[in-house]
């Protein structure tokens, strides 16, 4: 399979890329390409222009700045896994990519591409929601910051304007005692989640003092399970509380039937993933 014809552009700076996005019609940004190129081969996407942002160094890398961890949007999954900054300060974000795709794809696939593509099957959106991440978008009108939970509008629809680029993901490092987990039910290496749940939580005096829960691939977008979080706050993490949180997460699940299962099964697995992630995160709260 060969993609349809397009013209190729390889800007060296964010500014050049934004100028190209503004001046070319039917242009798409090319990040790792492991979603876009297969879609082009299948003619689901037929951009007239590809703007390859792989040669823009300022879009890559992980650094600490002003009390935040800043991750360049073009940072590949493999570098998230290998990052000592993330291992020490945001371990969820170095651990979870091991469940994404396979080694070759993780060499090319980027955190920003995974987010900006807007595919509800992708893993980083729910993880970013659980981490309360902010996305820094830059376009012809300048820079703005959008919270992860308000970025996703629908399948392949996001807050990004036509001439905007996702440049950075900004996240506060974990406070001491934070527990975390990403539980992803998948049939095989490289598969999307049948259901997935990301949890970031803290306990204080035996009760849940802070918790955020993101859900993967159980609705048209990644979801924040806010009612499930409310069901846990101030409670001990006993079976009743975990069951209540799982039920609240299942109540907002709106999955599509496919080869991974029907709606009933996927909804049940949403609850299971939330339960597993809560227990795994609680075991890490110290």
């Amino acid at each position, binding site marked *: *399979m*060969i993609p349809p014809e397009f013209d190729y552009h390889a800007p060296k700076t964010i500014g050049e890329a934004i100028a190209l996005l503004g001046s070319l019609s039917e242009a798409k940004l*090319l990040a790792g*390409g492991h979603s876009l190129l*297969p879609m082009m081969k299948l003619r689901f996407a037929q951009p007239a222009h*590809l703007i390859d942002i792989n040669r823009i160094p300022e879009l890559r890398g992980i650094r600490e700045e002003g009390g935040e961890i800043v991750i360049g949007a073009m940072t590949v999954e493999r570098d998230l896994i290998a990052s000592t900054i993330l291992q020490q300060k945001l371990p969820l974000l170095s651990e979870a990519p091991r469940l994404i*795709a396979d*080694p070759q794809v993780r060499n*090319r696939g980027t955190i920003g591409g995974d987010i900006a593509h807007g595919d509800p099957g992708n893993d980083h959106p729910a993880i970013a929601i659980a981490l309360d991440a902010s996305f820094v978008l830059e376009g012809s009108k300048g820079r703005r910051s959008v919270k992860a939970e308000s970025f996703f509008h629908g399948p392949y629809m996001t807050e990004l304007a036509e001439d905007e680029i996702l440049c950075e993901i900004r996240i506060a490092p974990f406070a001491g005692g934070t527990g975390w987990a990403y539980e992803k039910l998948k049939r095989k290496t*490289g598969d999307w989640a049948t259901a997935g749940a990301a949890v970031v939580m803290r306990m204080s005096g035996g009760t849940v003092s802070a918790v955020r829960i993101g859900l993967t691939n159980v609705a048209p977008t990644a979801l924040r399970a806010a009612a499930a979080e409310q069901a846990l706050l101030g409670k001990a993490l006993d079976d009743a509380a975990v069951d209540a949180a799982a039920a609240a997460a299942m109540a907002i699940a709106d999955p599509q039937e496919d080869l991974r299962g029907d709606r009933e099964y996927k909804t049940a697995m949403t609850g299971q993933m939330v339960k597993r992630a809560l227990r795994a995160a609680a075991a890490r709260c110290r």
Partner: protein
Amino acid sequence: MAKRIIKLTVNGKTVEKAVEPRMLLIHFLREECQLTGPHIGCETSHCGACTVDLDGESVKSCTHLAVQCDGSTVLTVEGLAQGGVLHAVQEGFYKEHGLQCGFCTPGMLMRAYRLLQENPDPTEAEIRTGISGNLCRCTGYQNIVKAIQYAAKKLKADAEAKQTVAA
């Protein structure tokens, strides 16, 4: 669309060609460089039969544009053997019978080659995770794992022998 001139190093040789932007690296290697070792399997980045080494990393050449490789260094299975002597991973697949039909083998070899540089002394679990992007429908993977273990041992012994000579 206008063709672009790209210049890259393939198996140690400089290659300069004009390519359409939409040409995939796998087609560039097979059709422009006559290197048919990298195989076209699923074409959707799942099977790993097209795996090659690009600037020191394993990539699936079916999901990479040739124009993106301008200035890069590519190694395919044809570049593994040196001076008529099989590379340790090739010897391992031969000695341990790490293949049946052979279709996945060039991708497996290239992934094994890179895996053993990333992790020269992998556990069995690390080998299985390391090759999880390469599908084999014949062997059940058992002999592929043994072949990579054989190669790891051989590479280690070769490196130690070299050190002894140097000392």
